[in-house]
């Protein structure tokens, strides 16, 4: 009784509602999963386990699959064939198609207008909802936490567990609340908040924690911005990132294809309203960030926590690891970041490939030209986003500027579909990881927001997007 009365956090409420068998010292909790997202790369071995044990997917109705990681983003060849990076990539795609057919799992496959990056389409279809537990064999599953869901990445063995039982074995992590007080300055985005937060917490500071993002600046974010922030909780080591649902969440979900309708919608909204953390809820760790201090951010090292303001200079190395990272990046301590030449720009990924991200980049590219030394790739997160962007002419803005407008997929974020940089190239990327070689062997990655990436594409060097916002305002004044 007293336990029921004590204030609970959003995370506590989500966790408690899904415990099938309670955790003990000897055994982890059996946690129920409401939505299982599946893609081609981390699922074949899990389906094999089911085959070995002669099992079928227990709840195909709670499972949905798509193709995103290794699918080509170039248009089909004249004969209709897709340009896979390797025959093995195609075999893996074919395997998922076969597995889904055998297990009667819905597959939003090639040619389906709902296909896209797994963390983009869940929310877009309204499958991602407050109060749900959501897993996927992908570390950026925390993205869905933006809706007040308990969403986390799992390994392939666990994918097999969920396919077979609709449950995972989990111990409850500790909780951390990151509060962004104040308002973001003009020209600063959710991506900048994410990079600032990771620099504060450190790449492993969130290990063992579930993170809740709160505060005025978080409340002011659109759902797209919230997804960007939650997406990157894993880059601070936290498997879970979440934001309490509110009117913004409800407005986003209303009338989505898979969202509840009619009386069920009213009931769902009432249920969702009870999810935010109670006053006085306890967290194992609290971090406060003044959002008004955040400037557009970039990374300069090979770990996402090596992040700094775009208008700053590269810091001095504090350790051998720093020195190695700066050497790899060919960034000199003390030199302004704006002196760094850019070879390639990637706008896309589950972090930043949504319509608002594309608009943010297009606003800067409109009427300008990508620097002739730069190759710029714009990869929408889903077929639906691609169509919506084309309907408002964003494709034309990018193409006129000299950027490439591609088919949806993960593309250069994981660089396993053939989209990648050449050795030594510096890529300004709106994705989530700047690890050595992540975007191609020897490629140097600078993480940034879509606005910063677009400005950098225009200037051919790391550029501050706020200069473009100022121009825009001046133009408006003149008009």
């Amino acid at each position, binding site marked *: 009784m007293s336990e029921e009365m004590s204030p609970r956090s959003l995370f506590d409420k989500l966790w408690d509602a899904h415990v*099938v068998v309670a955790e003990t010292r000897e055994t982890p909790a059996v946690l129920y999963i409401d939505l299982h997202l599946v893609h081609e790369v981390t699922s074949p071995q899990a389906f094999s386990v089911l085959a070995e044990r002669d099992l079928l997917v227990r709840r195909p109705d709670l499972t949905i699959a798509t193709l995103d990681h290794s699918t080509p983003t170039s248009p089909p060849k004249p004969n209709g064939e897709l340009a896979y990076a390797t025959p093995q990539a195609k075999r*893996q795609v074919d395997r998922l198609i076969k597995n889904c057919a055998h297990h009667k799992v819905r597959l939003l496959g090639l040619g389906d207008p709902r296909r896209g990056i797994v963390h983009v389409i869940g929310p877009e279809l309204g499958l991602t909802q407050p109060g749900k537990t959501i897993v996927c064999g992908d570390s950026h599953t925390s993205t869905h936490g933006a809706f007040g869901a308990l969403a986390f990445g799992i390994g*392939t063995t666990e994918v097999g567990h969920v396919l077979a039982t609709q449950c995972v074995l989990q111990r409850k992590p500790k909780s951390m609340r990151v509060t962004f007080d104040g308002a973001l300055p003009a020209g600063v985005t959710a991506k900048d908040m994410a990079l600032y937060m990771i620099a504060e917490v450190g790449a*492993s500071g969130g290990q*063992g924690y579930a993170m809740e993002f709160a505060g005025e600046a978080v409340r002011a974010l659109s759902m797209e911005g919230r997804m960007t922030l939650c997406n990157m909780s894993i880059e601070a080591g936290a498997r879970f990132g979440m934001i309490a649902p509110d009117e913004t969440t409800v407005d986003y979900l209303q009338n989505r294809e898979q969202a509840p309708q009619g009386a069920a919608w009213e009931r769902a909204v009432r249920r969702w309203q009870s999810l935010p953390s109670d006053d006085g809820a306890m967290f194992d760790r609290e971090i406060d960030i003044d959002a008004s201090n955040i400037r557009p951010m970039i990374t300069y090292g090979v770990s996402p926590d090596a992040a700094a303001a775009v208008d700053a200079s590269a810091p001095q190395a504090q350790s051998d690891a720093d020195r190695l990272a700066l050497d790899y990046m060919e960034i000199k301590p003390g030199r302004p970041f704006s002196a760094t030449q850019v070879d390639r720009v990637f706008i896309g990924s589950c972090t930043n490939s949504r319509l608002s991200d594309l608009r943010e980049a297009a606003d800067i590219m409109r009427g300008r030209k990508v620097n002739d030394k730069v190759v710029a790739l714009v990869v929408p997160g889903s077929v639906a986003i691609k169509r919506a962007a084309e309907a408002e002419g964003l494709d034309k803005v990018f193409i006129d500027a000299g950027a490439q407008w591609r088919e949806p997929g993960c593309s250069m974020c994981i660089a396993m579909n053939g989209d990648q940089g050449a050795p030594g190239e510096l890529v300004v990327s709106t994705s989530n990881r700047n690890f050595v070689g992540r975007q191609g*062997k020897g490629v140097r990655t600078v993480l940034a927001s879509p606005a910063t990436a677009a400005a950098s594409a225009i200037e051919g060097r790391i550029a501050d997007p706020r200069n473009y916002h100022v121009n825009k305002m001046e133009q408006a004044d003149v008009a």
Partner: protein
Amino acid sequence: MSLEPIEKLTSRTIVLRQENIDTDQIIPARFLTTTTRKGLGKSVFFDWRYNSEGRLRNDSPLDGFNPAEYRILVAGSNFGCGSSREHAPWALADFGFRAIISSDIADIFKSNALKNGLLPLEVDDKTHRRLLAAPGEEISVDLVSQTVRFGEEGWQTVFRVDPFARRCMLDGVDPLGHLMNQLAVIEKYEEERRGL
């Protein structure tokens, strides 16, 4: 995957001092198009070990040894961060490792490793520094007493490991089997929720 239970492991170490070794380093994404768990050992740390023509450089701490004698990897902090790819522990285990020692190991990697007969051992900073400084040292890991021992001075330290994962490794308990045994309770949970 059925595992060979581990109780005790005595082996020399290979040391990779770098911090934040992410799973893209352990197994680059282009090797993830496989549909089996097998055969990834030769590609482990591929870009650290092979030149641009794909020939083994033999200058990495991982090469030039008999893998049978070097089954413990000691690595810098935040080992296994980044992508959730289970291909990382599959590759390390296939290469011959049975244990990874660091001061802290990323959550998803740790969980994946434990399911593949690869012990992720988090030790205190002092022990960690001592091990990083002594590549090739012979170490004894005892999963029953949860201790790591090494060195002439008889250095001994206790490591923490999840009791369930420990039981899975010691007794060969199968986590999926454990879950399947709960199916009646899972069905009851689903039934109750339908009523809400």
